[in-house]
């Protein structure tokens, strides 16, 4: 039995993320996909220092316009400040109180700006280092057979450039001639160089990467400003930030709440007039700012930027924020078997000696037949034999022992066997039919026991290799080696986690049905497609989408491009072709298909953070009402002091405490906004219960405690009362 190799049979060595030697070990977080990533601190001192002046720059009303909530706070601050001036002119006794409120209102806006500036700052640091690598780049452009030096920014699509050892590739392009080792660490952070060559699926090169050997000719595929690095810089800087669909929907809710609370607060003027106690403008503004959803309004931009940033830190580049959000909605993952689910190489898992052949002899023969075989399959046989106690000499030693009488027999398409000639003793291994043919030609036969083993292994989805020997006219079939696709350890658990999250996994493979079914069962995928062609993938995506599913897939070849474009989330491997990268809405710089799972988790985390902080923000209002309403009207209706359930010291102290809490909570939640609410692979029901408890119930209770503590602290500040 033969198996059709998938087009991933020679995958561009997936770089283990951050695993290369020489890296300083950093604290790691293990993600759903099983990868560990460097844990980066939410912010360091320098970032904080840089964000402070930026918070003031962002006070510009034109910049605040995009956030109606914070714009309202700014307007309120202005109103409050004017009221302060009037009070000072009148010599009102409330001046100190009004000043404190006004300052904290201003701080509320500044804290919001600070969170955004901090999120942007993290991206900027990354963008700066990307930019640094490109400054003053000179390209050697080929024109009419001669090359001329031009500045890299002058390159246009279609130009041909030459790059030799030591050159930095000036822009994105496709290799049209040659092969080179390329150091892509500027983009991927990986120091191990990769091979790029013309033709095939590994022809794409990225501007800013460095050729470390050989010479290539590259056709430029991106105009200035459109290159990979340009896009990456724009993305991490947040320059291309557009509101995503869910962000817009949330925005609508926040605007509606702001309008309602504006009406509620404004109506208090006539209402209270009837009762004969109109609150001062400062107090009304304070009430308004406490009620409108400032917490979430302040943190929405930071949450969005941080989500993007998290993706970039996973070495994934998305073309838009919308794609990241869609990733959270994915319900079906199409995963290529090779490299994602299995290691990509068949490995020996068992030795089945022919009837009458001692096991030790068969294992030793299998080992000898594979000694010269440098393929992963061959090496796995040698390894397994060693594990089973075969202790014979290795190839070099054997050659020395035999005085050079050892010949390696390479695999050829005609013999379909490989092996070793040790003097007159010949060892061969190969597909059952090839070995049977060889043995019969020499006058032997395949014993029925071996045929049974071969069939059993094939039926089980494995690959049988038959081993035979011949010492000059006495051919013997010694047994069968069982090769199997080895499923990556822990992958079944990961798929189980995905299932709990409501995501179905579909394995795509070029293998035949039997093999595919066996691996699918072992890996625990929900479904599989055997003997799949790229067209089949496209059809499958359409079918899933018609059934209402949202589909994500990975791909790297040009023939994957239509499917990548059709998928709701298409992740192209950086090692893939330019066509694949252009069709996809994300590119994985590590070329690691497993990462799709992490991308989904990042999308979900983004939404969860937004939803949780919104709930928290709205729930906070209850406590603020209980602080401010009695404070406003207790002078006219002393009975309302019953509502002062927190027992706040005085009306003024109560209002100040509420405003201060409202501002401080923003700063306290900045780390959470940047890091994201932790995502766990649990069902929606469990996730809802947990987040409702923490952010809903917590949001109800926390401000009662916070406001009370601030009130107690205010009581000891002299001059406030």
């Amino acid at each position: 039995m033969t198996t059709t190799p998938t087009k991933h049979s020679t995958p561009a060595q997936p770089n283990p993320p951050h695993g290369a030697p020489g890296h300083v070990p950093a604290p790691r977080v293990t993600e759903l996909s099983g990868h560990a990533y460097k844990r980066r601190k939410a912010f360091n001192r320098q970032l904080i220092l840089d964000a402070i002046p930026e918070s003031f720059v962002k006070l510009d009303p034109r910049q605040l316009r995009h956030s109606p909530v914070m714009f309202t706070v700014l307007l309120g601050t202005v109103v409050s400040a004017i009221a302060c001036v009037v009070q000072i002119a009148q010599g009102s006794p409330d001046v100190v109180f009004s000043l404190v409120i006004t300052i904290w209102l201003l701080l509320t806006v500044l804290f919001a700006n600070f969170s955004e500036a901090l999120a942007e700052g993290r991206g900027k640091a990354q963008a700066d280092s990307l930019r640094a690598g490109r400054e003053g780049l000179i390209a050697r452009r080929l024109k009419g057979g001669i090359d001329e030096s031009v500045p890299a920014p002058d390159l246009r699509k279609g130009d041909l450039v030459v790059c030799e050892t030591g050159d930095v590739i000036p822009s994105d392009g496709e290799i049209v001639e040659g092969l080179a080792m390329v150091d892509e660490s500027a983009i991927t952070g990986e120091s191990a160089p990769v091979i790029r060559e013309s033709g095939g699926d590994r022809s794409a090169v990225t501007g800013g990467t460095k050729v470390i050997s050989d010479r290539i000719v590259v056709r430029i595929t991106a105009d200035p400003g459109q290159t990979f690095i340009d896009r990456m810089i724009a993305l991490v800087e947040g320059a291309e930030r557009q509101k995503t669909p869910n962000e817009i929907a949330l925005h609508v809710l926040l605007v509606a709440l702001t309008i309602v609370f504006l009406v509620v607060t404004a109506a208090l003027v006539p209402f209270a007039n009837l009762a004969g106690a109109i609150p001062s403008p400062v107090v009304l503004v304070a009430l308004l700012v406490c009620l409108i959803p400032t917490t979430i309004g302040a943190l929405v931009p930071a949450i969005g930027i941080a989500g993007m940033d998290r993706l970039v830190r996973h070495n994934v580049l998305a073309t838009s924020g919308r794609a990241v959000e869609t990733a959270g909605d994915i319900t079906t993952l199409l995963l290529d078997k090779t490299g994602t689910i299995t290691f990509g190489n068949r490995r020996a898992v068992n030795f089945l000696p022919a009837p009458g052949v001692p096991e030790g002899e068969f294992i030793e023969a299998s080992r000898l037949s594979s000694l010269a075989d440098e393929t992963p399959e061959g090496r796995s046989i040698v390894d397994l034999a060693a594990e089973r106690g075969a202790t014979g000499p290795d190839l070099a030693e054997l050659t020395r022992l035999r005085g050079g009488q050892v010949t390696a027999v390479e695999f050829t398409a005609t013999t379909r066997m490989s092996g070793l000639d040790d003097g007159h003793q010949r060892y061969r291994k190969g597909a059952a039919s090839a070995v049977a043919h060889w043995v019969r030609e020499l006058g032997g036969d395949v014993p029925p026991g071996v045929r049974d083993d071969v069939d059993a292994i094939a039926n089980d989805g494995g690959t049988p290799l038959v081993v035979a020997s011949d010492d000059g006219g006495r051919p013997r079939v010694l047994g069968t080696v069982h090769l199997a696709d080895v499923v990556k350890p822990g992958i079944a658990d990961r798929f189980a986690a995905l299932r709990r999250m409501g995501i179905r996994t579909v394995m795509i493979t070029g293998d035949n049905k039997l093999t595919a079914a066996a691996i699918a069962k072992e890996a625990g995928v929900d479904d599989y497609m055997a003997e799949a062609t790229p067209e089949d993938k496209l059809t499958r995506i359409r079918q899933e989408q018609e059934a209402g599913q949202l589909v994500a897939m990975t791909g790297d070849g040009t023939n994957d491009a239509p499917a990548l474009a059709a998928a709701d989330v298409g992740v192209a491997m950086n090692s893939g072709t330019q066509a694949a990268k252009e069709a996809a809405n994300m590119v994985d710089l590590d070329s690691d298909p497993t990462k799709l799972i992490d991308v989904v988790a990042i999308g979900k985390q983004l939404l969860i953070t937004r939803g949780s902080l919104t709930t928290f923000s709205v729930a906070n209002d209850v406590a603020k009402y209980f602080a401010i309403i009695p404070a406003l009207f207790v002078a006219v209706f002393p009975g309302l002091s019953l509502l002062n359930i927190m027992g706040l010291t005085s009306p003024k102290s109560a209002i100040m405490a509420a405003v201060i809490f409202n501002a401080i909570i923003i700063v306290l939640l900045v780390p959470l906004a940047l890091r994201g609410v932790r995502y766990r692979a649990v069902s929606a029901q469990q996730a809802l219960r947990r987040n409702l408890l923490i952010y809903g119930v917590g949001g109800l209770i926390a401000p009662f405690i916070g406001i009370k503590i601030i009130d107690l602290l205010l009581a000891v500040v002299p001059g406030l009362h």
Partner: protein
Amino acid sequence: MQFSFLSFITQIAVLIVALAAVHRPLGAYLARVADGDRHLRFERWIYKATGVSPDSSQTWKAYARSMVALSVAGVILLYVAQRVQPLLSGGQVAGVDPWVAMNTAISFITNTNWQAYTPESTVGFVIQMAFLAVQNFASAAIGVAVVFALIRGFARKGTDSLGNFWVDMTRLTFRVLLPLAAIAAAVLIVAGIVQNFWPTSVANPLTGVSQTIPGGPVASQEAIKILGTNGGGYFNANSAHPFENPNAFTNIFEVFLLLMIPFSLPYTFGRIVGSKKQGYTILTVMGALWLITESLMAWAIAAWPSLGEGLEQRFGPAASGIFATATTLTSTGAVNAAHDSLPPLAGGMAMFDMMLGEVAPGGVGSGLYGMLVLAIVAVFLGGLMVGRTPEYLGKKIQARHMTLAALYLLVTPVLVITLTGAAVLIPSVVGDAPSQGPHQFSELLYAFTSAANNNGSAFAGLSASDPIISSLINVAMWLGRVLPMLLVLALAGCFAQQEPIPPSPGTLPTYGPLFAGLLGTVAVLFTALNYFPALALGPIAEGTLR
């Protein structure tokens, strides 16, 4: 009179048993009315006579146009009829004052049934039976028709069509409301409600003194007034009048009737969208809010026994509390007690019930669509918290849906608060009022809360025939009814076009106790946040006066 908790619990238990028994058959029947393809013979005659092609389907816009057209036509017709009443009654009853006539017209078309007039002396049999009663049927049917359209929006996919408004109206009137009203009227007559065409004034032969004993077709009017959560009484005293509500049985039967259709519609919803547990979740939230508000009302009445001067003395304070809660939770507005003189916090509870937006269980039809809009907001928050673009019944909730849902939730509070604020600033309104202080504010707040939520019950103390107040109340009633309906129909139009996403373990489950709790909390929280300052200045201030 002492508050009897035993009486309270017994009555609530009777209501629960009765509603539990009726919601399934009635809900299933309503689902067949909404879904059925067959037309009855007399319905075909009606369609032929009116030129409706019953099998054509309408887009949300066409459905909305039909709804608005019928409503506007109803207002004009009713207004004119009242103005020409002398002609209609053969000169027996005078024409109605223009301000009152307009107020009454809008009020009955919008299912508010705010009554700025004294029915016994203002409107005769013809207006009562040929116009007000017709509007009682029509306004109830419109509410259910709109919720049918919304349910179809959830159940359908990839289509513009939401059904046919005229077919829905015809079926609801002739297959649901008329038969139910007839049965209810029969029961009420047997139970002792007046049903005759006697003139109002009769001489008392014993004393020889002429005494005013009104007669009239009360039972038949009463049935649809309650059944359709209309609330416009035959008499000024409404269900506190012994001819409208003669005994303890009619009292609890009326409460049952007004809760019956609203509590059955969630089952209809569950059936049509193909998931009964979705319907039961909505029903649970409505039921829980009803029980909680009933209990708080009972507490507010029982805790201030000396303050309950307006309570129904015949059936006891417990019956008054149960009726008051049911009537304010259902947009009915019929009363069996003077809400104005309930203990302050009980009056506040009546206001809070209305402020919930008439969703527990709410008016016929309007209660369910209000709750479903709240569910959309709850799904949005909950959906984000589980990390998916929120979806309800497989339909994604996006910016357009949130805009419509948020506007829906904005309309009523903004109307109530701005119009109350405006009324407070009018010197003639504030200056002339008999009561002062927080109670005066409560009266205004109650009036606009009642009008904008299409309830129709009232605190006293407001001269509603004053042109300014009357106009403000008209605005509240009309916008408070039509705008939410248009928004709901627009939502239905959006949903009908969407392809549903099949549920998976990653989908936020919109059933079960957790979601019910979230939905109930969202309903209460949004109400509390919108109205807390106003309630604090009105009933809470009054209730905590020392």
